[in-house]
């Protein structure tokens, strides 16, 4: 190589070279094509319930469908369901946001304890809550009872994201508003509340979807919704057209709610803008509101958590040793643990390709794949259950009422819980780390296993725990799809309480609560992390 100082020049010519691995064709990045294919298959699989509803509606014929949908019974169910949503969601929003504000933004005494206490009711399945309230007030029934139980069961779904968001809001924004002349209340309504929009719309949607999907809680107080009516139809006519049409209306209702949530979420940016360390939130003194605030939170916690626990324990003690029969109790516990573990593992495995595509190769394609699953998982368990019953009987009779079908239904219902966690974990393992490992001589597979998978594992485990919790408490799809002889904690609880054997049902309720408690705490902690990202 020579030097030429006199004139700037641009590089050089080629030369003869040997080749490394001649004949090998350039390949796309590690496994992306394979992962995309798997994700497409999963997305297609997750569209089975929607396809089922569309097919059944079309197969029923226009005139029959119209006749089955536009009738007084559907109108009655629609009115019940709409009223339930219209009354419950705003109350949950007020309780959830109000509680979150007290806990996160005021000098509430014992705010750390209250922060956990307000999330605790989530550990109690709604149907266990209903069972406790029926034990306390046997005459409970109708819309207002439904609103009461639904509110006490589901307000933490608003409280948890609202508290997480409030804890992370940049106080500098509130300080700026105050410096512009706004008082504390004006700051709350004009600055803080708008920033809770995503938490409120998301929480409101979750409450609404739970209201549409819940079966046990409303069946116990004899309050008819679409889901209870579909289950009744299924039990009486197995796979009748009337039940399918109710499912179509229910799915339509769900899709409307999803659309409303997307529209009301808006496109404004809520993440913190700017650099530098964020100050701690400012806590307002409560002064003479301290005692009323403490009493209000105490009342809410007692009604939502204390009362159910009290009655469950009361029935447990009332039943004595008889209710702890190992012959009944142990199989239910073991089968629940088995379904929970296998279902959680399967959900994580299925969720990984989708999360990987979404994080590492984001595109409209990966968004569509994710969307297909989010829609399906928003559908009530009863619709997913009916879809799997129909599809398995008509297309693959051999798998009907097998554990595999039930696990597949769990996967579809609870995949978003895994996806959120895996995505968060993958975000902790940027592809630069993978590349660094490869530049250090590791094969793409070794890099993936030693770096990406290792860094994603804790978040994936968190997701698995949440799916496990959901499976333990799942009742509707399990009632429809479980193989003969299957006894889970939820189905055994339901079976006993349906026979008015409240003492016999109590140990199952207690165990579900005990299993749910740590998972609820995990969910609470995780929501705070997610809000900070």
């Amino acid at each position, binding site marked *: 190589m020579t030097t030429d100082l006199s004139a700037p020049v*641009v590089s050089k010519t080629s030369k003869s070279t*040997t080749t490394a691995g*001649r004949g090998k064709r350039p390949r796309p990045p590690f496994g992306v094509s394979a992962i995309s294919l798997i994700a497409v298959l999963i997305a297609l699989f997750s569209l089975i319930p929607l396809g089922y509803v569309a097919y059944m509606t079309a197969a029923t014929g226009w005139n029959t469908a119209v006749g089955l949908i536009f009738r007084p019974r559907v109108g009655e169910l629609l009115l019940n369901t709409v009223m339930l949503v219209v009354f419950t969601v705003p109350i949950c929003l007020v309780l959830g946001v109000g509680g979150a504000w007290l806990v996160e933004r005021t000098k509430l005494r014992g705010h750390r304890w209250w922060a956990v206490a307000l999330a605790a009711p989530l550990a109690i399945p709604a149907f266990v809550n209903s069972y406790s309230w029926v034990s306390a007030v046997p005459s409970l029934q109708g819309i207002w009872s439904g609103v009461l139980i639904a509110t006490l069961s589901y307000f933490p779904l608003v409280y948890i994201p609202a508290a997480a968001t409030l804890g992370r809001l940049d106080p500098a924004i509130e300080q700026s508003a105050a410096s512009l002349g706004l008082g504390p209340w004006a700051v709350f309504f004009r600055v803080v509340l708008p920033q809770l929009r995503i938490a409120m719309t998301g929480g409101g949607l979750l409450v609404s979807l739970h209201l549409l999907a819940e079966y046990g809680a409303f069946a116990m107080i004899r309050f008819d919704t679409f889901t209870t009516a579909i289950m009744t139809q299924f039990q009486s006519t197995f796979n009748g057209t009337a039940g399918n049409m109710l499912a179509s209306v229910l799915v339509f209702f769900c899709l409307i709610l999803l659309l409303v949530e997307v529209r009301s979420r808006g496109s404004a940016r809520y993440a913190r803008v700017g650099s530098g360390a964020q100050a701690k939130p400012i806590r307002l003194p409560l002064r003479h509101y301290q005692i009323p605030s403490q009493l209000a939170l105490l009342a809410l916690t007692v009604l939502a958590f204390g009362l159910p626990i009290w009655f469950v324990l009361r029935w447990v003690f009332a039943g004595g040793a008889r209710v702890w029969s190992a012959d009944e109790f142990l199989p239910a516990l073991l089968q629940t643990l088995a379904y929970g573990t296998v279902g959680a593992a399967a959900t994580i495995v299925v969720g990984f390709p989708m999360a990987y595509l979404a994080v590492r190769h984001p595109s409209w394609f990966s968004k569509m794949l994710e969307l297909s699953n989010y829609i399906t998982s928003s559908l009530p368990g009863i619709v997913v259950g009916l879809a799997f019953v129909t599809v398995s009987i008509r297309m693959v009779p051999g798998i009907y009422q097998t554990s595999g079908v039930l696990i597949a239904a769990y996967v579809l219902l609870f995949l978003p819980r895994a996806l959120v966690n895996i995505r968060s974990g993958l975000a902790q393992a940027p592809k630069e780390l993978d590349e660094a490992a490869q530049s*250090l001589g590791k094969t793409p597979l070794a890099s993936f296993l030693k770096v990406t998978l290792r860094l994603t594992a804790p978040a994936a485990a968190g997701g698995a725990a949440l799916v496990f919790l959901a499976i333990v408490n799942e009742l509707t799809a399990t009632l429809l799809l479980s193989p003969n002889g299957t006894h889970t904690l939820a189905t055994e609880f339901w079976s006993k309480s349906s026979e008015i054997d409240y003492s016999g049902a109590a140990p199952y309720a207690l165990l579900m609560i005990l299993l749910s408690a740590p998972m609820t705490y995990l969910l609470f902690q995780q929501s705070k992390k997610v809000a900070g990202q």
Partner: protein
Amino acid sequence: MTEQSPSRLPAPRVAASVAPTTNTHLDIAEVTKNFGSQAVLKGVNLSVAKGGTTAIVGPSGSGKTTLLRLIAGFEHPATGSISLNGTTVAGNGVWLPAHKRHVGYVAQDGALFPHLTVGQNIAFGLDSSALDGGRRAVKTRVQELLEMVSLDADMAKRRPHQLSGGQQQRVALARALAREPELMLLDEPFSALDAGLRVATRRAVAKVLNEAGVTTILVTHDQAEALSFADQVAIMRGGKLAQIGNPFVVYTRPADRATAEFLGDAVILNAWMEGSLATCSLGGIPVRRPPAQGLVQLMLRPEQIRIAPDGPIRGVVVDTDYFGPETTVRIKLAPRVAAAGASLAYPGGGEIITIRHWNASITKPGTELCLRVVGEGVAFPVED
């Protein structure tokens, strides 16, 4: 220059127009790369000598990081080829994945594995079963590498988040050096560090790489960093290499006006070229290899224009910016006056130029100054 004795400036080693010899370590030929419909690299040619240090510098989006990723094996070129030590590793139907290229890579933020300790990070690429002495040999190697990058042995037990930014980059370098790569790629490794730490880390890294005799390619958008770090600088713009040469050459004789302005402050004046003399408001300036005769653009570096009481050029201070060690002075040039009976081919005057001076007190706005030009200028054809 040989692999065993990698020396530094001033001798520029790479002449791009010359065919590579066996001393060439990396050879990039006509490489292109597209992302969708966007052409990011548009036919890049580059040779890097064994043991040399090359800085690829260019503005954001010019394609320099993409080029580095192609060399590392993280991306496939659309066309063209890349050869290491005379062996094609990409292009012409050949593809050697990153883990088989034996190329070290240090990312912008170090990309240390957060779940591993510093020692485990450094040992990540080492195969204890392949080393004599097994795990003990790995431990020894980790200690050697920590010492090489001037970090205490105790650091081996720490986690990446317990290190400062500069320490993290040193660990990333040690990790990359552990496998004794023949080529080291540095992707803006100092850009996340604050100014003081950046200079210290850059010096430390350069020293380590120099002592190890590793061929190095640094990608940066910081021209000062490129000029001070490398013995070959490649300026990248719009997916192409605009110029390659040693730092002194590319700074003092840039290939075009854009390169001149990217590499540092430049005084650009219209001038009249006759032979090898460019006449402008600063007088007659010698130009080596003028690209054209007649009207041209003349480039001088601010430090070539000195304040001198007996200087032939006059101007008035417009304003100043005080930076401590030096003051940037903007001066409006006066028209040149011809001697009695003579006429000027190009009188000029009225342009505002920027120079640098150490003494802020003599450069108050409105002060009349005399100037002198030192050295040669560079002429560019007048742009349409």
